[in-house]
């Protein structure tokens, strides 16, 4: 590591490279909204009002109404419904 400068990479490349990060996209849909989350390690809590997704680095909580999930290949989860709030927390707590 002597003399080597740490190279700064754009966040998008970091997201796709790092196994501990995740990616989220939310779009409007006929059922309210659809959130696509990649890099999900497990699903914590799952009710009609709240979906809790765990990744290596933290926790993503989607709050709303009439929520449904669709599990896709590549550890991608889609959440449908009227999403009102998205909470991110770093670490396992």
């Amino acid at each position: 590591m002597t003399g080597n400068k740490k190279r700064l990479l754009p966040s998008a490349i970091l997201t796709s490279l790092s196994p501990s990060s995740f990616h989220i996209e939310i779009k409007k849909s006929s059922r309210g909204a659809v959130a696509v989350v990649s890099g999900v390690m497990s699903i914590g809590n799952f009710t009609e009002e709240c979906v809790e997704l765990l990744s290596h680095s933290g926790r993503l909580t989607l709050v709303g109404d009439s929520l449904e999930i669709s599990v896709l290949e590549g550890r991608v989860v889609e959440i449908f419904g009227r999403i009102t709030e998205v909470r991110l927390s770093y670490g396992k707590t």
Partner: protein
Amino acid sequence: MARLDEFVFGYRRGSVEKKHVAKAANLLLKNEICSVITPEGAFRIREKDRKRFLALAKPKFRFDLGEPLGVYGFLHRSRRRYGIFAAVITLLCICLFTSGLVWDVRISGNERLSDYVIEDALIANGFEVGTPWRKVDKNALEAEILTERPDIAWISINRRGTVAYVEVIESENVGIIEQASPKYSNIVAERDGVIEEITVKSGVAAVKVGDVVRKGDILISGVVENESGVSFCRAEGSVRAQSVLNVTSEASRKVNEKQPLKRKLAYARVVIFNFSINIFKNYGNRENSCDIIEEIREFALFDKYRLPIRLETAHSIEYGESSRIRSEDEMILVARRELDGKIYSMFKDADVISLSTSGEFGDGIYYLTSRVVYSTDIGKESAIEIN
């Protein structure tokens, strides 16, 4: 709602207890089994993931899995209904067979020639409704029709689906052989008459007003005499003369008349804007054996706004012949009508000065004769041959 791939390749609906929903979701996520799951415990998995799901989920939690759904599910449920498969195969065979045939022939671009004439030409070369497309050599057929029919300048047969669209361009001036204008000519009388007026543009007048001329007499000469001798030119001008002509018509007592026998629907089609949908077409009718009466019915909203839809129908009426005896009045009327028609067509370009008509009954025939005195241009160009 099922996704397209699920619908085609099959899927199953299932349910788990509400307390096991998160566990089931995690199991699906960790094993990368695509599914949709609701907080109430209802889920949907693809048919191809069923076995893997059963093996993984059975030891962990209780669940119910329903019958296969979608297209695969339908086929799975109907696997012992051989009739359905037989019907589908038969239908496919029928579609495959019928899609190889000509179902309709639509002709466009013709003005003088009727559709039936062109259809006849196509039929004569083995192309009609019901002909298999694979037996049709379009280039050879087009070449054959062009060779056979001088009144068709260009023909193209295009296939769209099962319909043959025949585009035609008719020949211009069929049968008219243009004669080259002679270099030197006279103007001669086309018929007998008394000269009324003469106008010379080129050449020398050979007659004067009041002269009586016979058919073939030179009116304007192309031979011009000058100081150095004789020179030739092309005579031009107009010569108007008064002539007399007897026009005759006759009507016989016994007459054969056409009687309508049968009226059949030849075709019916609905035209929406410029797109026509054929409802019915009978290819057995030909112009020489029957009359075709075409009707176009248009529709309007509140008798004011014309709709872009019309119904086009045609009926073929076949005729038979029957004889009957005419009364004398009827004979006179028929002869009169015929004579009027003749006079109109013969003297439409002439000035009729006087007309006297007389009629007489002969042996079962009524003769009507009109003596027409008329004035018209009698000049006709006649080439001068110089040896």
